[in-house]
């Protein structure tokens, strides 16, 4: 019998703690598949965030450091500057990366720090039980926006890819989703490119993965996947927002 499907080598046997229907599992798998395919497991160092993915260090087989809330790109900067031969990636949620860690995100991009950032955007603080995030949609109900996000009083969501597309130092910025097979395939391509860029010394690469939170959105997993298409993607359109090497090639 030939093996047609198996667990990526770069994932441990630990059982994921994520809620049923959460797409973190898919994204973990994509990252692990990419690490396997690039053969970099033994040279990779991950940086875990604060939030739902805080225990990512238990799930990947590579070395890992757990960073304070929002500080993963700064910690990754230290790791990478210490040993540029290592492949360093952060795995962060929207509260972590786009609220408390905005400065670290923007400035690591501005420095064209040669790291890979996996940014999981599900428009809510999951770990703490569903509060308004920097990426919560206008009108979206959360525990701390119980009447729906009112942009008049709390302002607008932060569009990270659009923001970073204006940062000269950012090398590659793409937004993908994992709510259907086609999108998952594209997401993997983008994640692979973001790691490949680092191997080639091309500098700061960020992939925003539009994700779901069925538990805190108050939906079935299936409905949550639909909600991505209906609500999230119109506000957060998929696509490549910056690719300086593609731009150079085009010239």
């Amino acid at each position, binding site marked *: 019998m030939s093996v047609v499907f198996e667990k990526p080598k770069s994932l441990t046997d630990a059982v994921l703690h994520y809620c049923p229907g959460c797409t973190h599992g898919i994204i973990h798998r994509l990252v692990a598949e990419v690490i396997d395919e690039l053969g970099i497991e033994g040279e990779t*160092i991950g940086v875990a965030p604060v939030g739902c993915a805080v225990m990512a260090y238990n799930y990947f*087989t590579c*070395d890992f450091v*757990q960073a*304070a809330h929002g*500080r993963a790109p700064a910690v990754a900067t*230290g790791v*990478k500057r210490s040993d540029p031969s290592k492949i360093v990636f952060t795995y962060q949620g929207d509260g972590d990366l786009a609220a408390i860690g905005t*400065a670290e995100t923007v400035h690591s991009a501005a420095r064209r720090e040669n790291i890979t950032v996996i940014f999981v955007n599900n428009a809510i603080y999951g770990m703490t039980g569903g509060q308004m995030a920097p990426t919560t949609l206008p009108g979206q109900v959360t525990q701390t926006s119980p009447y729906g996000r009112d942009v008049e009083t709390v302002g607008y969501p932060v569009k990270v890819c659009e923001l970073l597309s204006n940062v000269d130092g950012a090398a590659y910025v793409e937004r993908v989703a994992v709510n259907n097979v086609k999108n998952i395939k594209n997401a993997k391509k983008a994640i692979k490119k973001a790691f490949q860029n680092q191997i080639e010394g091309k500098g700061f690469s960020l992939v925003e993965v539009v994700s779901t939170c069925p538990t805190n959105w108050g939906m079935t997993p299936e409905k949550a996947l639909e909600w991505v298409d209906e609500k999230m993607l119109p506000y957060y359109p998929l696509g490549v927002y910056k690719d300086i090497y593609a731009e150079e090639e085009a010239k």
Partner: protein
Amino acid sequence: MSEKVLMKGNEAIAEAAIQAGCHHYFGYPITPQTEVAAYMAKRMPKIGGTFLQAESEVSAINMVIGVASTGKRVMTSSSSPGVSLKAEGISYLAGCDLPAVVVNVQRGGPGLGGIQPSQSDYFQSTKGGGHGDYRNIVLAPASVQEMASLTVKAFDLADKYSMVSMILADGTMGQMMEPVSLDVGEVKTYEKPWALTGTKCEREHNIVNSLYLKPEELEVKNFERYEKYKSIEENEVMYEEYLMDDAEVCVVAFGITSRVAKNAINEARANGVKVGMIRPITLWPFPKKVLADAADKCKAFICVEMNMGQMIEDVELAIRCKKPVYLCNRVGGMIPSPEEVLAKINEVNENGGAF
């Protein structure tokens, strides 16, 4: 390099760090410590090291965490308001048991305070500063030479115990120039099997982490850490005694104020007053025993500090309040004059000793 060179205290710290094997430095400009960053900016590129001016103190200390987690020597420096910002990272360094050196060239506070020298971060550095149960080793240099030698010592202690060593200097120490020898001697290196170096697919992954969701585990971790702290208190205390053999009045001062106090003590001795000084070099671990012993011989203590009375609490604890402890202080960036200290010595010598 046993010959002496004339250097600013801040520069001496920077060069000593490099000599001690620190090739990664992350900083942010703030008076009166900016010369550390400026020196590193000049030197690091020439030795293939890293100088990086971070976007914030918060970011700088987290870059320190990154390098520390890979097992290499790393330093950041700042002054009081900037060290407050680093408190988060210092707590994480403690929680992850990572070695690093943090320099605080103190200025007056609270808030933005001023830019003149102060010792008002004594509590912050010796009692915590960040959240959680933890300690930093805190070294208090009193000369440019000690700015260099204690920096080397700080790296050694940080690695030996896998924790933060802090240099607690002040604006005077940072800015003044004195001859200094940068002969650091042999630099000892320590095994760091926990470091993130890539598994090479040959070992289990290393995880640097401060999260323990099970309270039983977190409790054990805290107990273990305090066992380590206990052995530091037993083995690493450093202090200087000055004219203490027959002293009846004991001055306690660290850093720049100890030098002011020395002048006053010499003057008082010339007038026949039996006064001496104990100068803590390690503020944590605090030299409790030598102070307790002194309490059996002396009639009173005087703490000379550039704060509203912070170290005085540790002195009172160390001597179990057996003898009166008086405060001689200036704050806000003011430095006590030898005359002020002398006046206090004379006053305490004449009237002190009775509660």
